[in-house]
């Protein structure tokens, strides 16, 4: 089970409070986690990564275990504590705009 924490605007869109818990088939990577998230919450499709290119949106970041994973390959395995549910996978809206 993977725990995901979303930024407030996306929690409103998905009509959820708190964390999301996802069951991942196969290996837990950024791609598989977001695939599972979009399957469970189709209204989030396109909000975290572009519909077509599947690239992360520029002002969103992926954090876990106090590491910035944003620029890692989407197919890199997530850290062990995320895979076991000990630590959450965080989608962060960047602090930007001055």
């Amino acid at each position, binding site marked *: 089970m993977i725990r995901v924490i979303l*930024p407030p*605007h*996306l929690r409103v*869109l*998905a*009509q959820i409070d708190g964390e999301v818990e996802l069951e991942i088939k196969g290996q837990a990577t950024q791609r598989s986690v977001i695939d599972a998230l*979009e*399957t*469970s*919450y*189709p*209204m989030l*499709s*396109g*909000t*975290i990564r*572009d*519909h*077509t290119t599947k690239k992360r*949106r*520029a*002002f*969103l970041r992926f954090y876990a275990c106090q590491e910035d994973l944003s620029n890692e390959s989407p197919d890199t395995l997530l850290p062990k504590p995320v895979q076991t549910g000990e630590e959450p996978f965080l989608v962060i*809206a*960047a602090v930007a705009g001055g």
Partner: protein
Amino acid sequence: MSGVRVLVGTRKGAFILTSDEKRERWDVEGPQFGGWEIYHMKGTPADSNRIYASQSSGFFGQIIQRSDDGGETWHQPGLKPGEPTKSELGLPLAESNKFVYDTSPTTGKPLTTHQWYDGTQHPWEFKRVWHLEPSLTDPDTVYAGVEDAALFRTIDGGKTWLELPGLRGHPSGSQWAPGAGGMCLHTILLDPTNPKRIYSAISAAGAFRSDDAGASWKPINRGLLSKYIPKPDAEVGHCVHKIAMHPSRPNVLFMQKHWDVMRSNDAGESWQEVSGNLPTDFGFPIAVHAHDPETIYVIPIKSDAEHYPPDGKLRVYRSRKGGNEWEALTKGLPQRDCYVDILRDAMAVDTLDPCGLYFGTTGGQVYRSIDDGDSWNPIVRDLPPVVSVEAQTLL
């Protein structure tokens, strides 16, 4: 009892202003979608309780919202949480926020680039929906004008959107270039007497017309002169800001171009300048009186470098002769120290008698007039910057 619902899109959410037919007392509801940019909201003529909204964000992209109860509640017209997004055959079931250009060789056009600021070719990149234009007869059919410029349509109430690729695929498409605000399709006009005729306008490509329900398009820019482009009377490349028509006379069009106010009497085949005695003919919105198709309104802005009213005076200009002869309307509007802008989709009329006029400013005011523009009053003064205003007449 009749009344009016004014739909206001702002930089930080949506607001709905409602009043009875007197339009003296207003209820202000909002913000809906707080923190998000609402480029446009529009109610469907076929069902006044059905409203569509374009919600977008530089962080999270494009969202389409729909209300079926006059704006009290909203939902994304896709699937409920947990429902599969694909059929057993792998086809997408509902993707309400997905706007993907059609480049297939069978249904689309394999056009993948347009002109960029530096003259090079640049890939088409979807950014947001600027304008939503519901069908005049079917509440489930809506047209969407997007940036980078293209026209999309839904026929299932917003669940799925498909491009009408004939517009972007016009042979001039590779010459289109963005204006300062981006390369946006901001105007969609549906001819109430001819369901196959659609007008659209793009900054900074120009105006286009389809006579086959959007399958193919022709530029309609003859008579436009834009001194800021290499060939001022070019077929495309004009920065059209807004076009308006009166439903009783759909062959007569009024245009606020970047500079110049223009008029066409032949469905856009040719245009004549009607700026006349305006203090400046730069501006964004243009509107037609609901009951007099020769009475039109513009809000002059000083220049393209100074997006505020001339002399710090907010003045609506009215022509009762379809252009050329204009009078300033100032009563109730600030006549000193006013430096707001009025964006292209931020002016609207209702169809009550007398008709109501409305416009919103980047300073957060929404003004209304119920005497043809002779006098104005603010409905609200301190909203976030107003991007769009639409008026729904409730009968």
